[in-house]
């Protein structure tokens, strides 16, 4: 579905991403993890085609991502950004309808029938029916994040890119958000690539993890293989304790209190 072939990106003289080789198969849910400045967001910008790789290439369905027209690419791939939905003075329903933009012809008509029914369905699924006629700039951060998700659902993509989608949400909305994406993937079989800060959420929901550090891929594989104490220690420079989730068995990362102090003593 998506292939990175020696994909790299440099800004000025600084290399943000070194030649990355990576393959995402159809229907997989990948998590991209790594510390700040490790190249996660750069990789997302290359995948979504808003920036060009300075070396190597990104291919989506066998074609280089730059070769797609913006509309053509948007029919296949939707992106949910970290900052989510801006507080714009449009109504929730209007913003969801904007998700249909890649499909509209030059007269503004949607080839799909019953778009209203589809939008209603999304509103209902995301608990937004009561807010449908409210302006987005009157909503809370969590509500706006659901509107953002509604918009990408209306876009009906086959690939969903998520850039730290849960950063500004409390744990209730974090879990709700991940559940909604998981449910959507089960129903529509979409491929998901998500940059995640929360390693525990990543372990619970992702099939595979790509670990980045200093713009290089440290490793990639299943959460069980990726989230080991040595790897977390070397990548994040913390002292972790890894336990198995008591219900699902997925690895969960706990931090030990002394980590920072010991590092200072060692002179790091």
């Amino acid at each position, binding site marked *: 579905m998506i292939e990175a072939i020696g994909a790299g990106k440099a800004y000025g003289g600084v290399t943000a991403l070194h030649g990355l080789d990576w393959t995402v198969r159809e229907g997989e849910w990948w998590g991209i993890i790594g510390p700040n400045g490790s190249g996660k967001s750069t990789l997302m910008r290359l995948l979504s085609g808003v920036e060009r790789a300075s070396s190597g290439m990104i291919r989506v369905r066998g074609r280089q991502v730059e070769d797609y027209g913006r509309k053509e690419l948007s029919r296949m791939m939707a992106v949910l950004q970290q900052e989510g939905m*801006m507080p714009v003075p449009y109504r929730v329903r209007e913003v969801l309808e904007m998700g249909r933009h890649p499909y509209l012809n030059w007269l503004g008509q949607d080839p799909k029938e019953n778009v209203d029914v589809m939008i209603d369905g999304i509103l209902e699924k995301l608990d937004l029916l009561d807010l449908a006629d409210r302006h987005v700039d009157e909503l809370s951060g969590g509500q706006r994040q659901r509107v953002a998700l509604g918009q990408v659902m209306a876009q009906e993509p086959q690939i969903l890119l998520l850039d730290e989608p849960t950063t500004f949400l409390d744990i209730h909305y974090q879990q709700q958000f991940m559940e909604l994406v998981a449910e959507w993937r089960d129903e529509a079989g979409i491929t998901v690539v998500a940059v995640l800060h929360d390693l525990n959420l990543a372990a619970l929901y992702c099939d595979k993890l790509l670990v980045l550090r200093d713009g290089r891929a440290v490793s990639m594989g299943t959460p069980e293989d990726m989230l080991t104490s040595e790897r977390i220690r070397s990548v994040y420079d913390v002292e972790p304790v890894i336990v198995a989730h008591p219900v699902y068995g997925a690895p969960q990362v706990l931090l030990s209190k002394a980590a920072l102090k010991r590092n200072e003593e060692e002179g790091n």
Partner: protein
Amino acid sequence: MSKKLAGYGGIGLALLVLTLLVCLGIGSVALPVKDIALIVLHRLPGVSGLIHPTWDPSFEQIILKVRLPRVLLGMLVGAALAVAGSGFQGVLRNPLADPFTLGVSSGSAVGASMLIFFGLQYSLIGAWTLPAVAFVTGALTLWGVMALARERGKIPTNSLILSGVVMQSFLGAVVSFLTAMSKETVNEILYWTMGSLSLRGWSYTAILLPYFLAGLLLVWSRARSLNLLALGERQAAHLGVNVEGLKLTVLLVSTLLTAAAVSMAGVIGFVGLVIPHVVRLIAGSDYRLIVPLSAIGGGIFMVWADTIARSLLAPTEIPLGVVTAFVGAPFFGYLLYRSKKQRKGMGA
């Protein structure tokens, strides 16, 4: 959407027609609205046979030769500036953006003041020399501003605004210098830069009309994409908008509309800033409504402003730019006050 457009558009057009009829009657000779309507209808193809001239023939001369071309030119200049303003505000996503933000008016003013300073305003192609040169220097300014702001094939909005401000102050200094050096007692440069619609004939209106219509349709056709741009440039790109292409097209068209208006009528401020805002307060944030309604609103506003400019202290004419600022600024203040009160009234 289309229902809203028909509603607001219908009311707007009715107000526009009423404005034209009333303002045509105001002047040194007051003319009754009924006669004006009949005189204008009489000239329309297909209707002329049904109306028998019952009016004073001198009325017809005043209307057709003097007032109608001026009023229509004012309408077009106002509409062009307002559409350009809505385009600039949409692309720059900055509520303080207006048609002059990128220095186009200063560029036009430099061309015009050079000509006036050296006494060349009728040199090359007669009365058309000044508008033509002002248009070219205005458009050149945009090119300079874009070249200054361009960065790896993209034009970041912030650099664009900054280089516009830089260009504007530099060119403004050139105009001030020429104004100060000019030895005439009645300073023609100063007069030109403050805007006027007097003594322009039908030819100006005839040239501006198709030009304006093309510009309006181009900006209007990008309205849906401008709505998406409000979500942020990257989000718009993810929804299938070719962001750089959109910015370039709308900026270019808006600038050319501005340059045309300025080169014909001088620098008339406030229309391009206030009208799109007023429309937004009334009809909401959808550019599919803002663009066409701004055209109508700009036309209405400018016709009234020019009527005040030519009749309030007649026979002295007040510079048009002064009138638009006098009327526009307090009205804008009132609207801001009202929307602030409304928001408070809603509570939470």
